């Protein structure tokens, strides 16, 4: 009886009794949700355009953040370092396409996946060789990102918002809007969607797959950089960050591998669900459910809606 009470009633009682705390939990969940969404976005971009599940997206986040910090440590001004890092992500995109994926056109998906795993370990080794293995501090202030926090009086309590979190949310929203416009309104965006639909037909109308894939890898690189800055600002920049990429998996399953809105909504559901689950239901099983709850949610989704919430409709004419 008591267990059922704790499971079904007590958490909601707590939520109502301490609404300010509940709001705080929601906000925390929202922020990590935004960051999950950003990582998932990087996956979606590449998967949509080339059908490659890019295992290396996580390490690209680390690599971008390390480059930024490393270049700053070399004495570059923060903004120049930022631009140089974007250039590095561009070079990485060209290199990946020219040396790996150009030669693997029309290979089975599993081979492409293996190639990205190879790329992951190459980037880990190369990153450690260049930047060293120890954690670094993100240059948050130097980039002009806000620090500090504001406390709001709401519902008879305090809700504290970190400025960096607000900035993360704003930047994520800007990026997603920009990508949506890019995909739907521009010539290249149209070509990207065409390639996603049918490689052969895209080739036949003169769209260069190499060019399109370089563009998506570059876009995914920029998304990785933004994610790296935001995650780095919350903890520090180290190779351990790479595992957050796996958090993108449940997000993708939830939202659908091919959908940008799906990545966002999926990210938010996972982020918020995880936090609320941890705070209110975690104590029941002794805590620590944050690390696996997302996968359980994803599993349930796989059983009932394998294409995800916003997965592309499979058009089949009869």
């Amino acid at each position: 009886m008591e267990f059922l009470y704790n499971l079904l009633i007590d958490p909601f009682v707590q939520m109502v009794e301490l609404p300010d705390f509940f709001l705080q939990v929601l906000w925390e969940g929202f922020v990590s949700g935004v960051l999950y969404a950003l990582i998932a976005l990087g996956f979606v971009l590449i998967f949509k355009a080339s059908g490659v599940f890019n295992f290396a997206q996580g390490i690209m986040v680390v690599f971008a953040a390390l480059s930024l910090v490393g270049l700053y440590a070399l004495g570059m001004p923060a903004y120049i370092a930022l631009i140089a890092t974007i250039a590095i992500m561009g070079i990485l995109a060209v290199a990946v396409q020219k040396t790996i994926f150009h030669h693997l056109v029309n290979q089975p998906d599993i081979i492409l996946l293996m190639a990205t795993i190879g790329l992951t370990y190459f980037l880990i080794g190369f990153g450690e060789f260049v930047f060293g293995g120890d954690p670094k501090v993100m240059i948050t202030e130097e980039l002009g990102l806000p620090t500090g926090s504001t406390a709001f009086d709401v519902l008879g309590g305090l809700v504290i918002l970190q400025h960096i979190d607000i900035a993360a949310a704003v930047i994520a929203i800007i990026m997603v809007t920009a990508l949506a416009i890019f995909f739907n309104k521009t010539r290249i965006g149209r070509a990207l969607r065409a390639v996603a639909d049918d490689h052969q037909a895209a080739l036949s109308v003169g769209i260069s797959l190499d060019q399109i894939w370089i563009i998506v890898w570059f876009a995914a690189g920029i998304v990785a950089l933004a994610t790296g800055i935001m995650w780095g600002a919350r903890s520090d920049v180290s190779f351990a960050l790479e595992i957050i990429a796996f958090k993108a998996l449940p997000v993708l399953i939830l939202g659908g591998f091919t959908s940008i809105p799906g990545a966002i909504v999926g990210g938010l559901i996972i982020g918020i669900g995880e936090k609320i689950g941890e705070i209110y239901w975690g104590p029941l099983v002794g805590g620590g459910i944050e690390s696996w709850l997302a996968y359980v949610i994803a599993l349930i989704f796989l059983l009932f809606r394998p294409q995800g919430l916003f997965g592309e409709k499979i058009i089949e004419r009869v």
Partner: protein
Amino acid sequence: MSAVETVADETAAQVAQDPILSVNNIEVIYDHVILVLKGVSLTVPEGGIVALLGANGAGKTTTLKAVSNLLGAERGDVTKGSIIFKGEEVQSLSPNDLVRRGCIQVMEGRHCFGHLTVEENLLTGAYTRRDGWGAIQTDLEMVYTYFPRLKERRSSLAGYTSGGEQQMCAIGRALMSKPTMILLDEPSMGLAPQLVEEIFEIVKRLNENERVSFLLAEQNTNMALKYARYGYILENGRVVMDGEASDLRENEDVKEFYLGVGGGERRSFRDVKSYRRRKRWLS
């Protein structure tokens, strides 16, 4: 040499003088082992419609893809011979270079972009163009005048349109690249006879009004020979016969094997088979 022959030679030389496309004895190998084309030669004169006929697996699609360079993505390779488009060897060019030079393929099975609207599909055809939005809009209107049905369905997803509309969409998309030569693969596939006729009529009009040359791969021999001026018949990766469309239509072998109307009295299947064997041995 008699005078008559000399005159005939000269006219032949004139026709052959300026082909927009000439394929010279090409051999295509898939996956380094499977020999699909065993020496195919053909020419398409500027402003002509040439039909490439033959049964399933004869090598029609492979020939077209060898020209448009879409073979690479299928692990196919042109190992011998040459392909000359507008006086330039094109084997080493990418499909996108070829589209820029005015040669575009409409693939078998239409291959519209299902999740793009009809209009977006058409616009992807203009991907290689650099002559500005105004010119592209003009051509979009031009495509809509040839295919009024596409205008009605411009904002529906191509994946939800009918087979005929998708075929029109695929041809319209190719037109948006301002081609001088379209490689049209099996436009009649899976369409009602009436629609096939409609599409061939449009091909004819495009050929006359826009001066687009066509190389047309078809299994519907009857229809193809009605609209084409010249035809090649492929069998097992070789050209076994070629000639003016009108001559081919009258040819007894073509009638028997491809048009389904037996010449003269009916022969038993047994005879046909041995006849075919003999012919192949001869060729």
